[in-house]
């Protein structure tokens, strides 16, 4: 009797257990960053095969992608700076740069207040004079204790940030006389 | 067998045939007894009417159940298809009433049937597995071929001796007093 009972329980377990599979919930498609046993590094996201260039990614515009031409740091921007780009630059600067450099580029960001070595102020004459290509290099490759941001900020955005840094520098050292006359009234006020 | 709180529930009379029972029931009803019942092995036509049960509320209950089912079913479909999650299927109208008919019909029938059975049980006061008449000797024959008439003690006209007398006059085969707690 006991054997029959346990047999029934086993049968029930098989019947119930054979259900409840989540095959459609978890299909064989790999999600981003998912671990996968197939490759030695157990990473489903594969790096590019060395020396290949994905279609449409031939980054042969040195000015735009490297910030240097023939080993010489560039001055100026790959394309005319628009207001839209400046706003984009402010946006990106506030996300990625302001944590250390501070919202005005003073070098007093929140992380610095928490003990990170203070970066030089962006308003230093050295940096005001530095070619845009230098700034591009720093963002792309890092500088001193600063990590590279190439993986986080696209070249387009880097140029936008640089443009915005130029705006910050300009704003710090300008006087009321730099304001176009037709805008002056708005600033001085009645 | 001390008769502590042994109460008289009523009297039964046993008959051999349906005709006798019908005759007896008619007489008893005409005498003015109202708390009466008759027990038969099969439905005897006209008997419920003779003992004053002319109407059954079951049809009304089933009608109400059916209407409720129809309203609920159509309401549910309209709510789900046209209101809660309006989904375009092959360009057909959200409130595709021809396609809502089958379920409306099914639930009408379902609710009506369930209401009917519930009503039947309630009106018949079933389930009732314990009932005083079950203790009458020979009552088990009522589901085979015997017929019983029953007058309850709660009837205002009930008087044990006169009822017994009446039953005797009706030529009952056996007469039993039903006593119990």
């Amino acid at each position, binding site marked *: 009797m006991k054997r029959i009972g346990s047999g029934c329980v086993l049968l029930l377990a098989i019947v119930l257990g054979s259900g409840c599979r989540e095959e*459609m*919930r*978890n*299909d064989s*498609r790999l*999600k*981003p*960053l998912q*671990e996968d046993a197939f490759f030695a*590094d157990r*990473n489903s996201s594969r790096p590019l095969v060395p020396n290949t260039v994905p279609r449409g990614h031939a980054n042969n515009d040195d000015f735009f992608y490297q910030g240097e031409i023939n080993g010489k740091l560039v001055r100026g921007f790959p394309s005319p700076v628009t207001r839209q780009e400046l706003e984009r630059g402010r946006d990106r600067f*506030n*996300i*990625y740069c302001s*944590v250390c450099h501070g919202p005005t580029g003073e070098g007093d960001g*929140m*992380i610095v207040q*928490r*003990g*990170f*070595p203070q970066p030089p102020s962006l308003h230093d004459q050295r940096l005001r004079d530095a070619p845009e290509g230098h700034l591009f290099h720093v963002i792309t490759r890092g500088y001193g*204790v*600063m*990590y*590279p941001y190439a*993986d*986080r900020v696209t070249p387009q955005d880097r140029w936008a940030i640089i443009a915005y840094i130029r705006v910050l520098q300009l704003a710090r050292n300008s006087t009321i006389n730099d304001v176009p006359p037709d805008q002056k009234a708005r600033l001085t006020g009645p | 067998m001390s008769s502590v709180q042994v109460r008289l529930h009523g009297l039964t009379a046993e008959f051999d045939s349906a005709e006798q029972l019908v005759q007896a029931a008619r007489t008893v009803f005409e005498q003015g007894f109202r708390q009466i019942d008759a027990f038969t092995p099969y439905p005897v036509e006209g008997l419920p009417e003779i003992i004053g049960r002319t109407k059954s509320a079951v049809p009304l209950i089933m009608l109400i159940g059916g209407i409720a089912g129809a309203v609920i079913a159509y309401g549910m479909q309209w709510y789900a298809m046209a209101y809660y*999650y*309006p*989904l*375009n299927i092959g360009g057909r109208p959200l409130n595709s009433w021809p396609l809502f008919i089958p379920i409306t019909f099914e639930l009408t029938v379902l609710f009506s049937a369930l209401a009917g059975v519930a009503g039947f*049980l309630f009106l018949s006061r079933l*389930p*009732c*597995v*314990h009932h005083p008449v*079950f*203790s*009458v*000797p*020979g*009552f*088990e024959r009522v589901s085979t071929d015997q017929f019983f008439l029953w007058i309850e003690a709660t009837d205002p006209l009930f008087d044990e001796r006169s009822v017994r007398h009446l039953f005797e006059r009706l030529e009952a085969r056996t007469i039993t007093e039903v006593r119990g*707690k």
Partner: protein
Amino acid sequence: MPQLFSPGANTLFRTVLIGTPFLLIGTVFALYRIAYSPYATQVGVPVDQPVPFSHQHHVAGLGIDCRYCHTSVETSAFAGMPATATCMTCHSQIWTQAPILASVRESLSLNQPIRWTRVHQLADYVYFDHSIHVRKGIGCVSCHGQIDQMPITWKANTLQMGWCLECHKHPDRALRPPSEVFNLNWKPAGDQTLQGRTLAKQAGIKSIQEITDCTTCHR
């Protein structure tokens, strides 16, 4: 013929008969409670992570923008998890000896990614895309809750299909101006529904019919 049952049997029988429907209703109700309980949905249940990362500290405390780490949230389906290097951008200099960051350092030195435990896991037949939601003006808070107040991350919402649909049917209840998408403390000024309708028009949100179609999420 002796009685088969005692008088009490009637009461018992009727109680059982009437009780059964109530029992059934109770069971269904209990199942509902289970289906919506944290046990089933994992809402509000902190998830163990190799590093006890605190959004509260980094977001509310330090004011770091969401996109500093989740870099692809505006451009791709996947919001992006920070690489170890992202952590090390700061932690190469501060808290360098902190034991809780040991596995981050280990990850860097071994060149092995940190194995985070997923908090928000959708079924694979759901094609969710962060970028479209961000672009149209759905704030992070709408799905992830006040993540700036979570010392350890947990699910703030069930992410059940019914929950998704609730918003897809009434997008105007959740829409915010594009500038406020990443603002975790934004509160609508004035009537949200009214404002939401304008925003929906500005963002070019399709008709409710289209965004509640099956193929919106299931391809």
